[in-house]
């Protein structure tokens, strides 16, 4: 059999069908400065223009021989579409991701517009997906959305939300229910656009912030509703501390789990068995921008594979200002050392 394309590798991985080697892709942002420089544009511009967003994603993947692409890059698109504004930092020096400047301050103020899907940059992101599908048919295409709790923290003040979980349980639960519907709508929308997978990033819900009990009652049930509503491959990603909630994460029904470097993946694999897809879990900042010794980069990636992961994802967005050599070593190690079967996926 001839070598698989990146898209085929990604699709087969999610179906747990044998692949020639481990696909190298991410469900977190993976745009890099090398692509932005090659295009002659600026980081601040790739968030507002469909052509620049699509092209920077494709170029980033192709420069480093990645198997997949994921957009958008920032977590503010939906909050912006709900009228919470956007700070693009287009005059700032260096790389700063867009943020939401005007979050709702109380539960009473919240008023999610019915037509949010056609507002802000969301139509532009749709257009970028169309360009990517047309121009990069050989690459796996992923969308990512915020999980209900993390999205809630993007549209209202996080400290008010966190205290609300204790002080105003019923009202906060009702709000999270409403936001869950938004996450579901976004997932179905991207599913209809024909993406290969969706990563649901509930990144603010690790046990650095919330108790396992709170996770069980307020986070898990909403994530379950989200994954129940998606019929294409989906990933449950949570960064930070996840060892105490990993079984509950698994119980939410996603096709794969993604964790960051705080998770003890070898233990997680023992807890969950070999049937579940696990992605992760290297520290992207240290591994790709700081290390100067490539044997260290290689050792980190090999350990991720040896710990029993089925795809080696960065624990968070790749910091765009990577060192090219580190990125090349990451991809090469995944493809070479990943020729052996992973726990949930065999090899051709």
């Amino acid at each position, binding site marked *: 059999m001839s070598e698989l394309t990146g898209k085929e590798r990604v699709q087969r991985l999610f179906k747990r069908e044998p692949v020639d080697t481990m696909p190298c892709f991410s469900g977190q942002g993976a745009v890099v400065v090398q692509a932005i420089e090659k295009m002659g544009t600026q980081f601040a511009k790739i968030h507002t223009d469909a052509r620049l967003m699509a092209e920077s994603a494709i170029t980033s993947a192709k420069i480093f021989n990645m198997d997949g692409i994921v957009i958008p890059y920032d977590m503010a698109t939906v909050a912006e579409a709900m009228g919470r504004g956007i700070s693009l930092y287009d005059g700032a*020096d260096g790389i700063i991701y867009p943020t939401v400047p005007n979050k709702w301050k109380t539960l009473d103020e919240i008023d999610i517009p019915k037509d949010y899907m056609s507002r802000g940059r969301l139509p532009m992101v749709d257009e970028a997906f169309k360009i990517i599908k047309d121009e990069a048919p050989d690459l796996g295409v992923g969308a990512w959305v915020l999980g209900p709790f993390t999205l809630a923290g993007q549209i209202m003040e996080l400290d008010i939300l966190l205290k609300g979980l*204790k002080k105003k349980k019923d009202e906060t639960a009702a709000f999270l229910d409403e936001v869950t519907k938004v996450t579901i709508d976004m997932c179905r929308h991207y599913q209809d656009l024909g993406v290969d997978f969706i990563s649901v990033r509930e990144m603010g819900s690790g046990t650095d912030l919330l108790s396992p009990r709170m996770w069980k009652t307020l986070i898990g049930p909403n994530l379950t509703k989200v994954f129940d509503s998606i019929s294409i491959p989906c990933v449950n990603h949570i960064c930070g501390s996840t060892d105490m909630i990993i079984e509950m994460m698994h119980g939410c029904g996603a096709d794969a789990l993604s964790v960051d470097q705080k998770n003890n993946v070898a233990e997680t694999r023992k807890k969950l068995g070999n049937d579940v897809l696990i992605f992760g879990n290297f520290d992207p900042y240290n591994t790709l921008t700081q290390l100067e010794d490539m044997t260290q980069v290689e050792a980190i990636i090999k350990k991720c594979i040896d710990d029993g992961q089925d795809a080696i994802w960065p624990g968070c967005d790749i910091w765009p200002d990577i060192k090219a050599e580190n990125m090349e070593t990451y991809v090469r190690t995944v493809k070479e050392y990943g020729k052996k079967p992973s726990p949930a996926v065999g090899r051709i």
Partner: protein
Amino acid sequence: MAAQEEILAKLKEAVVEYEEDDCADAAQEALDAGMDPMVAVMDGLAAGMEEVGVLFDTNEYFVPEVLMCADALYKGLDILRPHIKLDADIPKASVVIGSIQGDVHDIGKNLVKMMFDVAGWDVHDLGRDVPLESFVEKQLDVNSDVLAMSAMMTTTMMGMKKVIAMVKEKNPDCLIMLGGAPVTRDVANLFGADGYAESAGNAVSEGIKMIGRLREYQKGEIE
């Protein structure tokens, strides 16, 4: 009238149990009983927050509980602070604090700010999403002893390095503290900072531990 120990216990319990009204009542009771307000702050409110730190470290409390404890502490502090007598011979220490440009998270920053408030420092809180130049301008303007910056995300951390370089060039004596999820000891060293708290959780834990150190300092147990 309740004995001092009893009032201190009430203050402490009100913080730990995040009872804002009880904390305000106990603070007023301390004043009515003629208690030194600084003792009430340090051995009541701050002692309560130290216990919260233990509960946080042992996974009994998480961030929502800690935030509510902080709210309770401030209820008491707002009542006690105006009555604390300042020593005119000792200049008040000051800090400029804020979350770096591109970062709209401020929970960790606010908990560290609480530590400085408890200690009676002049706190210049620039808020969040603060442009790099604003940190430098404010620090030079008020000549603060400490500049404290937080970044919750890797993607905003790099701005700290620029601020440190700008401040250290003009005011090398200013101590610089970094905090936030992506900040490690290596990063702090690399950037030229004087201290760090390595995660959102650690910012909570470290901030609370610093309160403990302040209490020891006040009692003369450390220099």
